[in-house]
């Protein structure tokens, strides 16, 4: 088998005495759609932050295409082809929608810290950004300040920014958080389209949302992976039912 897109070995994270991630081993193949689900406080977002170097792990390694990411800064990891979104909308609210996406294209198109190119002179940048806007259906909002968009539109923009750079590993942190059912369907459909052929790792609170989309699902409970496998298998897993679905049911009733 080829090198996995993302490989976690013995990953741990403690904040003081509290152990949030207690040893995670996970291997995600190329072009796989992988969902990480779990109840609140299971450590899903922390796991994301460990992978993208927002936090440094206490122990263990993260490998992207077989390369150890230890000691790299977020921007270096991004340049290696891993891009992420955030649970709380994280865009540039004062800039226009178009500029948000264009900023996301700059590094990928090789501009680096250039001060000898003018951004509006580059048709590749303008067309590239418009293409992304078309994909996320925000072409009509192109010239509005991003902060004035509706919540669902901002989430869509966030996904647009995340995929714009052409990263081949996309990580989405609860992209449907706080959305109505229609909005959720819309966003999930959008995610399906824009991550075609890419490795997708997605955190979700609700298994129902990712059931149709994910190739594999991992269930994270109290910082440990309880089960990993095909959606049907995971749903049928006794431990998962007890620990997660049971808890979720209890919470509901």
């Amino acid at each position: 088998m080829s090198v996995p897109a993302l490989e976690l070995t013995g990953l741990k994270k403690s904040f003081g005495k509290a152990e949030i991630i207690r040893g995670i081993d996970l291997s995600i193949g190329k072009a796989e759609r992988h969902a990480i689900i779990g109840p609140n406080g299971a450590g899903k977002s922390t796991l994301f932050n460990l992978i993208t170097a927002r936090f440094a792990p206490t122990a263990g390694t993260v490998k992207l295409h077989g390369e150890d990411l230890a000691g790299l800064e977020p921007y270096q990891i991004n340049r290696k082809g891993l891009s992420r979104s955030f649970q709380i909308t994280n865009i540039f609210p004062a800039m226009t929608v178009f500029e948000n996406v264009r900023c996301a294209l700059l590094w990928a198109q090789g501009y680096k810290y250039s001060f000898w190119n003018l951004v509006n002179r580059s048709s590749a940048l303008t067309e590239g950004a418009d293409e992304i806007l078309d994909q996320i259906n925000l072409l009509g909002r192109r010239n509005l300040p991003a902060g004035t968009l509706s919540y669902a539109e901002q989430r869509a923009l966030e996904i647009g920014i995340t995929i714009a750079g052409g990263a081949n590993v996309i990580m989405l942190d609860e992209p449907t958080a706080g959305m109505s059912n229609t909005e959720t369907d819309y966003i999930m459909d959008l995610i399906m389209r824009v991550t075609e052929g890419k490795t997708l790792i997605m955190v979700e609170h609700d298994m129902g949302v990712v059931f149709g989309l994910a190739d594999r699902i991992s269930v994270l409970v109290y910082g440990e992976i309880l089960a990993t496998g095909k959606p049907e298998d995971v749903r049928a897993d006794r431990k998962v039912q007890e620990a997660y679905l049971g808890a979720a049911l209890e919470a509901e009733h």
Partner: protein
Amino acid sequence: MSNFDPNTDMPRGARPEEQITTDPSKPSERMQFRLMLFNLAPWIIASLVLLLLPAVFTNNSTITIMNQMMITIVFALAYNMLLGQGGMLSFGHAVYAGVGGFACMHIMNTSDFFSSIPLVILPFFGGLFGMGLAMIVGSFSTRSAGTVFAMISLGVGELIAASSVIIVAFFGGEGGVSGNRTDALPFFGNEFLQQINVYYLIAVWTIISAALMFLWSRTPVGRMANAVRDNPERAEFLGYSARWVRFYSFVASGFFAGVSGGLFAINYEILTEENLNTASSGVILLVTFLGGVGFFFGPIIGAVVFTLVQTVLSLQTELWAFYAGSLFLATVMFFPGGLAGLIMMHVPAFKLGKSKLLIIPYVKTLVPAAIGILAVCALVEMTFHYRHAATGDHEMTLFWTTFDSHTVLPWLVAAAIAAVGLGIARATAPSLKEAWNEANTRGAAS
């Protein structure tokens, strides 16, 4: 997400001309040419105005004021590369201008070298020295924005200002360093003996610097400076190191600050500790904020207004700094977008073709308000005269009226005018507000 900062409500990127130039509906070439002309128009007009001003104001003292204005414009624009575009609040930016200026003075005094270069390129050396210092300081100060950056800038500013009395060889101690610009290689036979020659030198440098700084804001690193200002974390996850983006902004800003220092050296032929102390750093912050940090042209307006207050008003009253401070305070409190923000507030009304609705309400409110404020100023001046004039000197002249400041009547008159003026302004304010709302609402126009 809401916009926390009203300044950034209308960011540079959201300006109308940008929206038009990048319109996807491919404009024809003729359209494009027209748009180019439209974009260039402010630059052409500004350049023409700068080049023609000396024909209108011919006396030397006015030209001196204009020189100072242009130097401040370059410095304020450089400062806004940090504050407005990069979100970095510096309390010690005068040191980059100052060090650039001192370096230029030393070049002026190195007669062998100086006599082999034309004076017109001297500001470039000022820029290089400003940039060099910015590279050293920026290497550790740009690690973070916000309070840490502000404190480091303050510390470095104080440090270098303090060195000016220690390292006498470079800063010339209390007397400063002076030189003679006419020792340079004549430039097409011009030795820059007269103020008007210097005017044109500074004008050309101002136009070039402003254009370069504007273009900088349109480059990838300039765009990312905005992105890092708004959301450094997001920028990092787009492949950009927030620190390096800040560093490049800082270095570029240091360069243009150094250029302004070089222009200062040419204009005044002397630099002292005053050029790099914290007070000067404070002034440039004030100038930039007064003009408005949210727009590229904001600092230009700030520099013009402040220089006028500083030079013209200071001839009229000793209390000019008091009025400058009040103006600054009023701007910060009521118009956080600065004077430029105040102007740009009117763009929507103009676009809707309803700006005419505002004229009469403006006259009704602003004229009484202005009269009221002038009357308050009169009270301030009278108080100052009452307290500080020489004993027995009871006579003062204010607004072409001479009276005795120790009698009751002038006080009553000034107080009455102030009360009536401000009272009318206050009474008419609601109708102005109504007119404002009407002018900014689409449709149902008269």
